[in-house]
């Protein structure tokens, strides 16, 4: 049976290639978007636990977490909340380091727990008011920076006071500047991107999040990466876009496979009639057609997986977010792409396969 499926697909190789290509485009789009979303999720995961915090307070309904703007004054009120042990503001500068666009510069209160929790591996903390910066050990290694070197941030030179390690990728791949200097650099006085919070002992993050959102209208609290992903309208849009594309890919792909297989059934009436004549039951003949549909789809899906992995990288560049989002291809993401491919084959093959079961052998034979 597999040999017959293989030879049937090969003898109409051009048609097979075109049909598989259509499916490949759909599957590639799905895989690329899933890889992008997974990358966003991982990015978001990094934002959740910045500085060893348990939750982050962001502005609600922003396009991306990094686009959030909060008044610095909110920090004192948060700090006073019984659920909160410590709160400290962060101002994020994306693409502030020209020599490494993926590095994020954190404007942080020198007295806050975010700065305090950084473990210095070299040098010392910046002197108050000095144009100095702390550099993560990953970034330092990448740019060959040592204490005393100069790092240019947003066109302004800063002396590297010390090198730190926090164990959080985003922090170790970035740099930490005093909040006031970051605000000055971005012309955003008294503003922060978000406020990271350590909770009082025994307080559950979900409970605290509800209290904070109620007390501070216009904010959104994130406590886990999945939630962080939902904060960004772009992320939500992408998630919905994936669903729409999956549905479109299923419909278009299934129609394409139906068309191809229906044509094949009409052209091969004699052959299928012969199979029936020599004792192939309707289910077996239908399985042949269905098998061919699935084989085309799996071929397309396999190509789609490959293109999707490549497309994921292209997508982050096209969207201009390659600095802080790396597409992440997971086995589940690939599995879903493959699943869509198989589903296209099954859905597309059902009608032609059904037609075959209705075929009268003598009439089919006379069509040759």
């Amino acid at each position, binding site marked *: 049976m597999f040999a017959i499926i293989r030879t049937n697909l090969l003898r109409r190789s051009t048609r097979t290639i075109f049909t598989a290509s259509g499916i490949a485009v759909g599957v590639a789009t799905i895989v690329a978007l899933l890889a992008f979303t997974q990358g966003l999720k991982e990015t978001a995961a990094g934002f959740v636990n910045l500085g060893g915090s348990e939750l982050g307070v962001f502005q609600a309904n922003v396009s991306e977490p990094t686009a959030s703007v909060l008044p610095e004054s909110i920090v004192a009120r948060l700090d006073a909340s019984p659920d909160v042990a410590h709160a400290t503001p962060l101002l994020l500068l994306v693409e502030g380091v020209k020599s490494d666009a993926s590095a994020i510069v954190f404007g942080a209160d020198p007295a806050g727990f975010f700065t305090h929790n950084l473990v210095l591996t070299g040098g010392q903390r910046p002197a108050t008011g000095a144009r100095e910066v702390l550099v993560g050990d990953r970034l330092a290694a990448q740019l060959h920076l040592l204490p005393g070197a100069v790092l240019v941030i947003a066109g302004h030179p800063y002396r590297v006071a010390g090198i730190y390690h926090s164990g959080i990728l985003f922090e170790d791949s970035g740099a930490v500047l005093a909040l006031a200097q970051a605000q000055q650099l971005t012309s955003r006085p008294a503003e922060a991107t978000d406020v990271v919070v350590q909770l009082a002992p025994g307080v559950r993050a979900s409970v605290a999040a509800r209290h904070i959102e109620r007390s501070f209208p216009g904010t959104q609290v994130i406590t886990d990466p999945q939630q962080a992903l939902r904060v960004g309208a772009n992320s939500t849009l992408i998630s919905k876009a994936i669903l729409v594309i999956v549905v479109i890919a299923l419909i278009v792909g299934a129609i394409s496979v139906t068309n191809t297989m229906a044509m094949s059934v009409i052209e091969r009436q004699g052959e299928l009639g012969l199979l029936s*004549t020599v004792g192939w039951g309707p289910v077996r003949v239908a399985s042949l057609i269905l098998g061919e549909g699935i084989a085309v789809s799996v071929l397309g899906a396999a190509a789609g997986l490959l293109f999707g992995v490549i497309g994921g990288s292209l997508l982050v560049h096209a969207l201009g977010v390659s600095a802080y989002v790396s597409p992440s291809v997971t086995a589940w993401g690939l599995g879903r792409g493959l699943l869509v491919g198989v589903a296209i084959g099954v859905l597309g093959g059902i009608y032609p396969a059904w037609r075959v079961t209705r075929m*009268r052998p003598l009439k089919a034979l006379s069509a040759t």
Partner: protein
Amino acid sequence: MSAPAGAEVTVERASKGFGRVSALRDVSLSVSPGEAVAITGRSGSGKSTLLALIGGLEQPDAGRILIDGRELWRAPHPARARREVVGFVFQRHLLLATLSARANVEVPLIGAGVHRAERRRRALALLEEVGIADRADHLPSELSGGESQRVAVARALANEPRLLLADEPTGALDSTNSERVLDLLFRLREELGMTLLVVSYDSSVGTRADRTVTLIDGQLAAADEALSQRG
């Protein structure tokens, strides 16, 4: 190959029409197990329709077609019932173009769920039987008309049928190849003991068969009708 016993064929007042065309009218015929019967008649006389009804490819509008006492098309699984009893050879060989001769012979065995190694063994034995084992790996396009028809005969024998139905098996062959294919069919019938029904214009088929029946405008010729009713 084991020798399958021949099947008994009984056609009882069978009629068949296609739209407004009456292809077969009230035909009755009895064929004994192992008998070789030639069916002749002009084009459009209903020969192929009769064969299709006997083979269970079509169901009669009226009357009954019994193979060893059962109606194939009424079986719970008509394709299986057909596979277990009947082998078909057509005017054109109808080999699958992309499969080798051996793979073509294997096709009915796939339908029967025979395992791959056994399929291969049986297909090669059958090709040996019809005298073209050396062409087993050739595609139909690489075979002559006579060779292709011999592959078709091997395919018809794959499931060891007790009834072999041949519809103009030499219609597309030259005289030399026609003789070879007829020699083969009648030799196999002798060796295997199967019942053989051959539709043909070829008068030499009649001389080889045990009996000849003639169809005229969808009905058996009077002499054949009387013979059939006698027994």
